[in-house]
């Protein structure tokens, strides 16, 4: 063992420090791009060699990958934008990757990454990936792979302080315990007590990242839904804001429609956008997190 071997504390074994970026895959990047712009994101850079765009809003980086082999060995991107990857900020990406593999994670397929840089990653739920990124701050991963778009503000401000809050993951029946083991042992997530929910969709099991900057919501199919086609995968991005009515209004003014039927009404706690482009939606969640 070398002297420089990291010696992380048990509660946050990887030195997790939030979401560096979220990646969507789609064969319709322009349509999705205009949806993202309505959601407050701006395109800020283009990949040097692939059909990949970097969007940004406040602290949020979002990558739209339309490269035909976006997920080699898996399926090509469909027209409905799909959550393809979560990139986690960690203290030491190589260490985080090595540790995950030692614990039984599956290495990601080679060249699956949107990046030219060798960003290590592992298989997550369904076809999704989890990347480990340790170059954030002054010298970022984007400097290597992306060319800034001419005239674009590299740091567009966030609408109503929007920031990454969490990701919703669909899982199969009786799979909650399996995925808890996955997120607890690989990353150090912890389970919030039953009944502690944010937002307007109080279902499933909430996991808090060890850095306490974002959440994962695991959702089994609701009882009585045997006829519904239900796959495991990342299904929705949650965006946090302090003032949900203000955020909802601002996005409505930009052309975003929110579900306003039944129990899913925009409220102080949260709001759910309608499903766009065949099934992609976003959830707003009242958030105590710092943007």
């Amino acid at each position, binding site marked *: 063992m070398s002297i420089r071997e990291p010696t992380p504390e048990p509660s946050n074994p990887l030195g997790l420090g939030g979401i560096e970026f979220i990646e969507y895959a789609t064969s319709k990047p322009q349509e999705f791009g205009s949806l993202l712009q309505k959601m407050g994101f701006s395109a800020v850079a283009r990949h040097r060699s692939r059909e990949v765009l970097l969007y940004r809003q406040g602290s949020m980086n979002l990558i739209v990958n339309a490269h035909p082999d976006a997920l080699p060995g898996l399926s090509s991107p469909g027209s409905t934008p799909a959550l393809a990857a979560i990139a986690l900020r960690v203290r030491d990406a190589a260490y985080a990757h090595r540790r995950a593999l030692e614990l*039984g994670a*599956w290495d990601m397929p080679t060249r699956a990454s949107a990046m030219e840089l060798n960003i290590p990653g592992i298989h997550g739920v369904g076809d999704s990936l989890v990347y480990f990124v340790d170059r954030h701050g002054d010298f970022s991963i984007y400097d290597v792979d992306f060319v800034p778009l001419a005239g674009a503000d590299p740091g567009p401000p966030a609408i109503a302080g929007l920031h990454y809050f969490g990701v919703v993951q669909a899982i199969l029946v009786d*799979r909650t*315990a*399996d*995925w808890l*083991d*996955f997120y607890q042992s*690989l990353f150090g997530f912890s389970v919030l007590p039953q009944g502690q929910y944010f937002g307007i969709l109080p279902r499933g099991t909430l996991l808090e990242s060890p850095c306490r900057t974002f959440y994962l919501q695991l959702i089994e199919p609701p009882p009585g839904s045997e006829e519904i086609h239900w796959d495991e995968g990342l299904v929705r991005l949650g965006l946090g804001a302090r003032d949900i009515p203000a955020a909802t209004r601002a996005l409505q003014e930009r052309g975003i429609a929110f579900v306003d039927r039944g129990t899913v009404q925009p409220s102080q706690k949260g709001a759910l956008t309608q499903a766009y482009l065949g099934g992609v939606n976003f959830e707003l969640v009242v958030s105590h997190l710092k943007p």
Partner: protein
Amino acid sequence: MNLDNFGMDTITLAGPLEAKLRAIQDAGFTQVMLSAADLVGHPGGEDAAVAAVRSSGLRVTGFQVLRDFEGLSGHLHAYKVDVAKAMLRMCRALGSEVLLACSSTSAHAVGDPESLIKDLQKLAMLAVPLDIRIAYEALSWGRHVNEFPQAAELVQRADRANLGLALDSFHIFANKTRLAALQEIDPAKVFLVQLSDFMWEEIRSPDDRIETARHYRVFPGEGVHSTRVAEMVRTLDEMGYRGDYSFEVFNDDYRQLPLPMVAERARLSVKWISGLVSRRSLPARRSGGAAAVP
């Protein structure tokens, strides 16, 4: 209990996979326990084997068998991880929710519990994204783990939702493990029960044990340990075990007899077992609070 609780095992039968599936189905079984050889030995390749299983409509009880996984290090461990991944992929392709993993017989395997637990946790983690449960079985000639209470302790300490036990009556009888120890196990942690018997009272040496296990097993009700089989099944039932049974019957004679004849013997064995535990098909009577719910 009835036929729906039992998977017949392809290793008992001779012939091509399709013929085995047909014989199993014709005897009235709705499940089949498959082995990797069914896939990789198929003349049409793995995909054809998977298609045959899926189109049969038989539910897959489980997939066997990952050997000698735990307790290795360095390149031996890396090699076994590759093997495990390939087994898990096949298991997934078949729609099997259970992969059987036998305790290691390797002379290169260490036996300290911490290492074994770490490896079992790793195997369970590999299985999570594929929605597969690992059923860990104490092989009676396992190097360090050869009785089910040892396997149960490792599984308990590893504490992974998708890691549980496979109990095989042969190995339990061969090592004369106390059946009373079953009662110390959480029934939810039993992922598979494999039943078989054999036709002599004593197994005199480890070699004799391996030889008997691989060539001379018979169906429950056909051997000389019927009382113990009955005790095992009743105990499991009273504990609340409601999972699957399979017939782990390796028998050279059965592999040279007509398939329908062997499958019929399996069916008669189910009938014999059902006579021991007939009330299982009425779980509402036994499940306490749930019984009140219509």
